[in-house]
């Protein structure tokens, strides 16, 4: 058994999945803070709708929402889930010493850092990116933005994502411990597997899309130039072919983490494990057939809009199965409301608002009136941005004792949770009203009658942001000065809790032999568990 090396060099050159995971977490949190600060500035700019600059003016406003979107989706949510949670938890949950390709894993992380630095250049260097996180042609071609920042950031991040996907899909297939059947995997692992499959299929398409953008802008080709025989809609199609499934890249691991938290704190087997797995895989596949709903008013063919409406609203069915299975798991459970559990329940509540409004956006006749309005902004902040960021906080709390060996401050955690939940619940609701009135998004200033709406939105978003900062403070303070935690403070039956905290180098002294699933709480003698 090798000794665990220490010191700065041991972090930079590490191929240990746990250290890489922690580096992903720290880097992603930095981008989360950047995204929050940009949001705070934009909300402040919206305090008064008179056409006067409050802090940044229209140009910087556009730059800020571009980097806010990119930082939150590409550099915070996807890396924290597919970087931190996948890296740290998958080998522990399947009973492996490390991932299948440890060096490739380290390379993925450093590609991600490089990509993040290029994105930061897009915020601060001349030729700032004001093209939206989608980088739509032709504006990204004819505007003043240095689109190369965008293209190269996506390329590097794509290389990171593809190698991560190859690595973890291989790990999950080949490195499961003896007895760790597909029916005994944690739902977190299933969710991550779905997400990695999407990354593997989708990211190359996005890389192709932005490569053509680069050729058009700097080499004079005209893939997207309508006046030279190109077609700007091609970019929208290619972008959303990955861009929409990217939402499920975030959602599927989050669904898995919610299941793990609920099973542990209700001390109850996940209700309908098999249907949970089928739902994850259905979303993975059908998620690729929905992208045209982003082009519902883009002059696409009428019949294609109807076809994609059916695929889009059908996604609501497997998602609904998951929500009802969670509720059924709570039923007759033995529930303890710790901070992670509060986050899981708060997530379900916020996510359901986002879910039902998501069905509305998928309905092609409904969408015509709210497409690209503040309704959409409200919808995706409920369904994705804030609900999933909150659940990620819950996930970090849940495994905090595992990866730090310390206990977090429970009181502060709960206080920050309520601040964030109340802030999030109220902050985006006025935008449903603005969007119902059909007012477009990405507006530096709205018509003046919406000043009160946006003031409420601003105040409550500040509250949510303060909640997030308190949570981050709790992480930082507890990681350094928290009380030592036992190896299994939640008394969970899942495999990652059966080893010391923090786990030793190479995790398991001897690869364990698995005899039952991770959720077998209160199993009566002699009853055969399903799903094995």
């Amino acid at each position: 058994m090798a000794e665990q090396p220490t010191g700065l060099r041991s972090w930079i050159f590490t191929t240990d999945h746990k250290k890489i995971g922690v580096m992903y977490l720290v880097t992603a949190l930095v981008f989360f803070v950047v995204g929050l600060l940009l949001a705070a500035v934009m909300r402040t700019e919206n305090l008064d709708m008179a056409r006067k600059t409050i802090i940044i003016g229209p140009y910087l406003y556009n730059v800020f929402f571009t980097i806010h979107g990119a930082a939150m989706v590409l550099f915070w949510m996807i890396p924290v889930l597919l970087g931190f949670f996948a890296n740290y938890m998958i080998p522990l949950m399947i009973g492996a010493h490390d991932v299948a390709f440890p060096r490739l894993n380290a390379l993925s992380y450093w590609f991600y850092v490089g990509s993040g630095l290029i994105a930061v250049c897009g915020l601060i260097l001349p030729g700032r990116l004001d093209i939206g996180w989608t980088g739509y042609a032709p504006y990204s071609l004819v505007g003043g933005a240095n689109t190369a920042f965008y293209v190269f950031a996506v390329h590097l991040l794509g290389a990171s994502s593809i190698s991560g996907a190859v690595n973890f899909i291989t790990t999950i297939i080949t490195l499961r411990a003896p007895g760790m059947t597909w029916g005994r995997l944690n739902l977190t692992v299933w969710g991550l597997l779905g997400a990695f499959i999407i990354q593997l299929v989708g990211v190359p398409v996005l890389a192709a899309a932005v490569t053509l953008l680069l050729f058009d802008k700097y080499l004079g080709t005209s893939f997207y130039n309508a006046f030279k025989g190109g077609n700007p809609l091609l970019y929208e199609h290619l972008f959303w072919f990955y861009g929409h499934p990217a939402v499920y890249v975030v959602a599927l691991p989050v669904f898995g983490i919610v299941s793990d938290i609920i099973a542990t704190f209700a001390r109850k087997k996940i209700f309908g494990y098999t249907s949970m797995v089928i739902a994850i895989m259905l979303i993975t596949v059908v998620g690729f057939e929905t992208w045209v709903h982003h082009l519902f008013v883009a002059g696409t063919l009428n019949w294609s809009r109807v076809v994609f409406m059916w695929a889009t609203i059908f996604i609501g069915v497997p998602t609904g199965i998951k929500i009802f299975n969670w509720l059924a798991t709570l039923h007759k459970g033995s529930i303890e409301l710790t901070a992670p559990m509060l986050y899981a329940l708060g997530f379900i509540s916020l996510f359901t608002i986002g879910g039902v409004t998501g069905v509305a956006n998928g309905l092609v006749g409904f969408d015509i009136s709210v497409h690209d309005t503040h309704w959409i902004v409200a919808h995706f902040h409920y369904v994705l941005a804030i609900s999933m960021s909150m659940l990620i906080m819950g996930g970090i709390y849940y495994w905090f004792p595992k990866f730090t060996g310390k206990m977090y401050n429970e009181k502060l955690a709960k206080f920050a949770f309520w601040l964030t939940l109340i802030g999030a619940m109220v902050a985006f609701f006025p935008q449903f009203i603005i969007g119902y009135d059909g007012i477009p998004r990405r507006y530096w200033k709205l018509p003046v009658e919406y000043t009160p709406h946006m003031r409420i939105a601003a105040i409550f978003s500040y509250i949510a942001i303060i909640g997030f900062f308190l949570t981050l403070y709790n992480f930082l303070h507890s990681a350094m000065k928290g009380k030592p935690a036992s190896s299994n403070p939640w008394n969970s039956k899942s495999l990652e809790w059966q080893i010391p905290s923090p786990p030793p180098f190479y995790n398991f002294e001897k690869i364990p032999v698995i005899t039952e699933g991770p959720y077998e709480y209160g199993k009566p003698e002699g009853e055969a568990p399903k799903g094995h």
Partner: protein
Amino acid sequence: MQRIVLGVISALFVLLTPLTAFAQEKLHDPAAGWYSHFNLWLIISIVIYLVVTIPLIYFPFKYRRKKTNQDGAYIQGNTALEILWIVIPIIITLLLGVQSWALFTEYRTVPKDAFEAKSVAFMYGFEMTSPEGITTMNELRVPVGPVKMNLTSKDVIHDFAIPHFRVREDMLPGRTTYLWFNAKKPGEYPVFCSFYCGTGHSGMLAKVIVMEKNDYDEWVKKQKGASEAAAASPELMGKELLDKSGCTGCHSITGEVKMGPSLKGILGKKTILADDSTVTVDEAFIKEKITNPEAKRIKGFPPVMPPTQLKPGESEAISAYLKTLK
């Protein structure tokens, strides 16, 4: 349990039948159809939200842990329940989907007698052309009744959204898209660009003015007379140039500050440039601003003005018009 499942399913199918019949009925006004679609969706969504959140709040209290490490009941699943919450969402999905499909068909099927106008978007404004060939900037006049808009763009992608009529469609360079709406009552209705198009995006506003048929015909007659008069007078020609080229979309003639400074009393005025130097606005300055707007940027305004080429005589006509704006 199975009986309850079957009961709920058949009840929902009974509900589905009249609603699909309603959906196939001709609506004649997509906006009105949109509101009933919204209401059905809203009722279903509120019910779903309550069905989820009530147990979500109730269970943690009802089933709170009483002893350390006490386990919950060992329940692995329930086939009947799981089928129930597969089938009910499918039925709801079908219900909303069929209604939406019918509404969408209405949105995309233009009545034969529709008034047909055209709009060309640019950064940052809408050029509107009436069927009589009258071109206006950021202002479309239409008679009461169904209106079809043919849409395209000169530069990047824009969008033509009229929230009041609950319609929108993107305006793409190099191709023509369309939308239609039923303008029932005379009045002014705001138009927004709903597709992010750059720094001036939030200022890319216009309006649709719906008029009684007689008022509209009179307006057309007056416009035709006006362009003949303009040919004879430089002031009128200048005004027409500013209106038709979209200048007044960002530069008001009333003193109101929009995306750019107002043109009221601008000739002879002293102004501060972005580099803090002071210049007097004269004819040469105006001419340079139009042909090369970024060379001398006025302090406090974003760099969004597109350059425009001037034909001989046009600069003089514009200056003549600006002199009249005191």
